[in-house]
């Protein structure tokens, strides 16, 4: 499974005298199993790009092809179902449901897929153990540290077995230790399960781990390099 962008544009304030080209005629292809970092300064359009890749934002023009199918042609309901089954999201501010425990947060997205309670419980527990939260299954987000919350977010993103995980500056609020641990987990999942990770970041710690780095500026792809030497 691959994601291909064709002539993708996103223009904010298009009807005004000062339109902002957040993404400007972008062509890009990301194949399954890649570990990609999209880097660039603030306001360069990284998040907008990730949102369009994940199907939660609509481009002004262009195509988002997943296995050759343009997801922009899907109906609202089909698009939500597509996201649910194929895309995992990790947000900068974790975005966990504060009234649910770590385990329930992870189970919840699986339940949306219609899995049985038992299945959800088993996979959610396994994932949380894998991200090192065996002791914190029944704690609510407020009782967890930032790093722990982001690990729950990773487990939640992976719970529905997505093909792609979009991570929008996942380490922005984490200390060095938490960042290293989180990147270890994601790198492991990428290598062992072939899950595609696409990060937007300007964190050098993330960039050093990425196999492919795309430099983005003013809505344009400035560089696209494959890193042969990746930090472990």
């Amino acid at each position, binding site marked *: 499974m691959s994601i291909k962008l064709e002539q993708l544009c996103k223009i904010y304030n298009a009807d005004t005298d000062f339109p902002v080209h957040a993404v400007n005629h972008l062509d890009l292809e990301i194949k399954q199993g890649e570990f990609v970092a999209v880097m660039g300064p603030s306001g360069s359009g990284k998040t907008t790009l990730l949102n369009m890749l994940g199907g939660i934002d609509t481009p002004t023009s262009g195509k988002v092809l997943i296995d050759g199918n343009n997801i922009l042609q899907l109906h*609202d309901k089909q698009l*939500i*179902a597509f996201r649910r089954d194929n895309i995992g999201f990790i947000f900068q501010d974790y975005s966990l449901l504060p009234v649910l425990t770590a385990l*329930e947060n992870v189970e919840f997205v699986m339940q949306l897929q219609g899995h049985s309670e038992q299945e959800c419980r088993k996979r959610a527990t396994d994932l949380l153990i894998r991200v090192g939260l065996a002791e914190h299954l029944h704690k609510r987000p407020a009782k967890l540290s930032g790093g722990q919350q982001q690990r729950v977010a990773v487990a939640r993103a992976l719970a529905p077995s997505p093909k792609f995980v979009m991570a929008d500056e996942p380490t922005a609020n984490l200390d060095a230790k938490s960042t290293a641990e989180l990147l270890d987990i994601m790198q492991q999942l990428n290598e062992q399960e072939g899950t595609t990770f696409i990060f937007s970041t300007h964190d050098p710690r993330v960039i050093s781990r990425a196999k492919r780095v795309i430099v983005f500026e003013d809505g344009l792809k400035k560089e696209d390099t494959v890193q042969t030497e990746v930090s472990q």
Partner: protein
Amino acid sequence: MLLKLAWRNLWRNKLRTSIVLGAMVFGLVGVTLMIGFMNGMMDNMISNTVNWQTSHLQVHKKGYSADPEIHKTIESSRGLELLLDKTAQIKVWTSRHLAQGMIASARSTRGITINGIDLQKEALITPLAQNIYDGVWLDDKGRNPILVSKKIAQRLKLRAGSKVVLTFTDKNGDVSGAAFRVRGLFETPSSAFDEMNVFVRKADLQLLSGIEGDHEIALLVNDIKQLESVKEKVRGAMAQSNSVQNWEELQPMLAAMSASMASSNIIILVIFVLAMGFGIVNILLMSVFERTCEFGVLMAVGMQKHKILQLILLESTFLGLVGATLGLLLSLAALSILNVTGISLTAMADGLSAMGLDTLLYPQVPASDFAVIFITVVLASFLAGLYPARQILKQEPVQAMSEKH
């Protein structure tokens, strides 16, 4: 999970939810007590009217009620009386000989209805015999005893033992009259009734009027549900020249008030539910708008919009369920206490008496009213969730996620 999520979301801001619930609970208690008070007042007015004045059914000669002339006695009453004695659904009945006349004391004169009564049966059909405040109930002893109300006694300066003169038109159209001695003073809940009625022995009045028959037969049934069937039975057994009327026909104003009570209760409930509904909409708007970003995340991770709608509606319905349950439980407790203590309105005794009401009222809310209030509140809460849900659902995930509170 959706139920769990909705329930926990409801209690996210405990203070805010508690304030809304408090408003709902106190509003509901107020509405329920108001409805209970109105029902209690109406029931009291009806039961006083039935017990003291009309009974369940009355038989008269046709036209008597409009023009109560002394010669308009019930025709063929003997056969009817035999039927009344045999009918098991009838609890008790009595017949009265009535005359419109004047009562005069040494001080004053008043127009009144003279009720010639059967002493034993009258004591069973109305509570009159148990409500003599000065003197005693009528008996066979003595010549021309009379019961007058406290009101008449005050106006005519009478007391037990005083002498009065009754005058009325007899069967020949001549003015007839006789001296009576006050045997006792009575008081009913209705000052209007008290000012217009005196009671004498039927035989004494018949002797003076020169007429044998009765003008009124009044009866109580065992079960009010059988009232109409008894009425039809009575109608079938009596002469065509007579008429039988139930209490509602005898007191049409009271019947109309009773019928409109249901409407006024609904109006009270609707006003409360509307006010409460806007309150819930307001609180839910605050609650969902501060979670707009969260709803965006839910949409992003694959929660279908109908599930988000369900979530918001569940939250609003839970709010209604908790509010209605607490409100009605508290109302039930308050009603239980007030049903023992009653609501004392002695300060308004004169006004209440004019309306035929007791000064101690017992609020009544039937189970069906509780059910209606409960369902209405829960339904209104459910509907109140629709608008906030719509505001969220029309947003795209990325747009919703960009809303930070």
